[in-house]
């Protein structure tokens, strides 16, 4: 047994050397046909001319032998002379980060987030400028891995940060034909559900405090400004007065509870049970991240209900143009190893994965290619404006967290201050919504002052 393992390992090693050798041998041909990496983008050679062997590093250990292999087979129909092999890693981020220094990190790989922006050019092949690519791809997602206008990585798909999981059957029963776009329309829709069905219109899940934190995910999009959280709010006094995103988002929660459109006893709710109730149509909707959708759909399937009746809609706050804005975050980006010997083949495969494979939609994510269909579960997002938060300017780096921690508001952990909104709306506190927000404001203002006082140190 043991001998076998050793001989297998040896055989593996030998093939690796062999592959390496082959790659080197073909080096010259690729270079002469493809020319300099940066130009590959514009003048792509004919598919038959592209040849070589490429290794693709991936974090998807779950589908490496199934779906990914199918994509490669599909790719070979157009590019018969490229041999694609995959290497999947459990601890992708850690393993690849270690391999970066050796230069041996495949030809196409998912860019680990450990590479600093300043070092993109040392590790990654440039894929073109934003101006060149924005004709094909949705521009707002191209800024994920770029440096001074040059794109180094293309997102494999895009996730929605926060929204509302809802039961379509209940919405139809209540007579809601168009999804609400503003807080007022949302209240009206909830009222319709209360009047026309037996379902609980909105389930707050207050007892499981982390569910309160899901609302915070909607704040950034409500600002309709990708720099709001990281550059503006962290320096802002009175961040919780009427008109500010932090105020408006949580007002939806307060109003829903105060208008009696939520569960009867929010303080004894139970998360696992709420998923079943939502699947069965006893709950009309819940504010959650997109990760929750598949969980509830799974339960619906288990209960013998069509999982497509459980859907996901954007949080009902619109920008000035009347579009609903949705916070989105790109998934891992594809990149090409700057040391790759088969850059033309690598680029062909990268383009294929982004544009033709259907990988994003298969993974339940939004494709970044303009004109691509949305996955069925996210169909309601088709006409929304997407917003990807920009990283903080150097002088504000880490400031939002610092102010937030100093304020003790705990907005990402379902803190007592978030629960305070439900308590006040429920009548358990002698406070109006503005009283709660005034307390938040005081805390936030003090925190901004305190952080500013020793920020420059």
């Amino acid at each position, binding site marked *: 047994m043991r001998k076998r393992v050793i001989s297998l390992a040896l055989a593996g090693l030998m093939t690796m050397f062999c592959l390496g050798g082959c790659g080197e041998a073909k080096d010259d041909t690729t270079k002469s046909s493809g020319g300099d990496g940066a130009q590959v983008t514009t003048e792509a050679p004919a598919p038959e001319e592209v040849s070589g062997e490429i290794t693709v590093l991936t974090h998807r250990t779950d589908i490496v032998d199934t779906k990914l292999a199918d994509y490669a087979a599909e790719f070979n129909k157009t590019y018969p002379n490229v041999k694609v092999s995959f290497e999947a890693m459990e601890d992708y981020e850690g393993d690849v980060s270690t391999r970066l220094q050796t230069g041996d990190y495949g030809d196409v790989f998912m860019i680990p987030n450990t590479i600093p922006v300043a070092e993109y050019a040392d590790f990654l092949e440039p894929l073109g400028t934003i101006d060149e690519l924005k004709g094909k791809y949705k521009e707002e997602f191209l800024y994920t891995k770029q440096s001074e206008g040059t794109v180094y990585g293309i997102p494999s798909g895009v996730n929605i940060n926060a929204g509302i999981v809802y039961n379509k059957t209940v919405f139809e029963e209540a007579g809601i034909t168009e999804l609400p776009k503003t807080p007022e329309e949302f209240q009206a829709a909830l009222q319709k559900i209360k009047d026309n069905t037996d379902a609980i219109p909105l389930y707050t899940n207050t*007892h499981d405090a982390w569910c309160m934190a899901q609302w915070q995910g909607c704040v950034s999009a409500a600002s309709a400004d990708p720099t709001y959280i990281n550059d503006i709010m962290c320096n802002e006094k009175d961040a919780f007065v009427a008109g500010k995103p932090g105020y408006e988002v949580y007002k939806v929660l307060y109003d829903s509870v105060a208008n009696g459109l939520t569960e009867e006893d929010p303080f004894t709710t139970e998360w696992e049970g709420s998923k079943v109730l939502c699947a069965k149509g006893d709950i009309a909707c819940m504010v959650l991240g997109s990760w929750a959708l598949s969980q509830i759909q799974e339960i619906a399937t288990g209960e013998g209900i069509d999982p497509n009746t459980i859907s996901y809609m954007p949080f009902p706050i619109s920008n000035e143009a009347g579009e609903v804005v949705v916070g989105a975050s790109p998934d891992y980006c594809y990149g090409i190893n700057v040391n790759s010997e088969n850059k033309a083949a690598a680029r062909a495969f990268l383009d294929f994965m982004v544009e033709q494979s259907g990988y994003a939609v298969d993974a339940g994510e939004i494709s970044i290619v303009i004109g691509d269909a949305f996955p069925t579960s996210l169909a309601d997002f088709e006409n929304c404006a997407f917003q990807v938060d920009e990283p903080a300017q150097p002088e504000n780096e880490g400031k939002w967290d610092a102010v937030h921690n100093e304020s003790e508001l705990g907005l990402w952990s379902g803190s007592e201050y978030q629960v305070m909104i439900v*308590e006040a709306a429920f009548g358990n506190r002698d406070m109006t919504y503005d009283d709660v927000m005034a307390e938040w404001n005081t805390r936030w203002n003090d925190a901004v002052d305190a952080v500013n006082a020793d920020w420059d140190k």
Partner: protein
Amino acid sequence: MEKTSNSFLDFFKKRKVQKSIIIVLFLTVPLVLLVLFTYVPLGDMVKYSFEKWNGTSKNHEFVGWDNYKTIFERPEYLRVLKNSIYYFVGSIVQIIAALYFATILNYKIKGANIFKGIIFFPTLLNGVAVGLMFNYFYRGGGTLDTLLTALGCDPETLPLWLGDAAIVNYSLVLVSLWRYMGQNMVMFNGAIQSVSSELIEAASLDGASKWQQFRYIILPNIKTIVSLNIILAVKGAISVFEIPYIMTDGQNGSSTFVMKTLDTAFVSRKYGLASALGVVLLIFIMVVTFVQKYFIEGREVDDYGRTKRGAKAR
């Protein structure tokens, strides 16, 4: 050479030396554990309480008494201590009930052991299980509501046991009472069993009622264990954590001092301030314990227990 090694061995063969070696060896292990896991962290906590630190950063900024000033200047930290009053009153009720059960179960009653078992059983349950169980018990339309409806209460008039800020603390204290009474009872029962039955028999022959037997014979004999339980009850009331944490997570004003400390450290990442809260809690408990010892055990008992024998004889 041989001579020295012999004398060396002889030295170790001495009974006295061996005795002290064994004592030192046996004491080392628990002492090292005690110092390592209790006093070193305590020292660190006191040190952190004078610093501003986020728990991970390399810089610990020394801020002097600032953290302590914050605790006493901002009302939200000490405000939660008022919830301890509920638990303290609850634990006094708990001790009285436990004493009552321990005493009557000490007399010859049919099925005394079964009753003891039933009362002690909740103590064996895991705190999380208790929390979940009572969550179902108290929720709207849950076990308690069903029971009361069956007894003739109008379901419309029943309050939300955990959802009403005026009731939530009583509901939680009841759970705590249910859970910990058995433990007190077993301790009291053990103490009562050590009271000489001849004394009780003689008293009953002299015509002493059950109350008089309890008041003048049983209670004085188990005074130490009662006072110990009261000290533990106060400590428990100030540092109550498990039940409100699992059942309500501090919602509706049921938060406690320890929960506030945890949030300060792990949500707001203010380890310095949280450490200061920990030190304040420690001081509170120490003060309360000393005051209590002073009043319950009488003035003549000093910290060294020198007059304890005298006190007992009296």
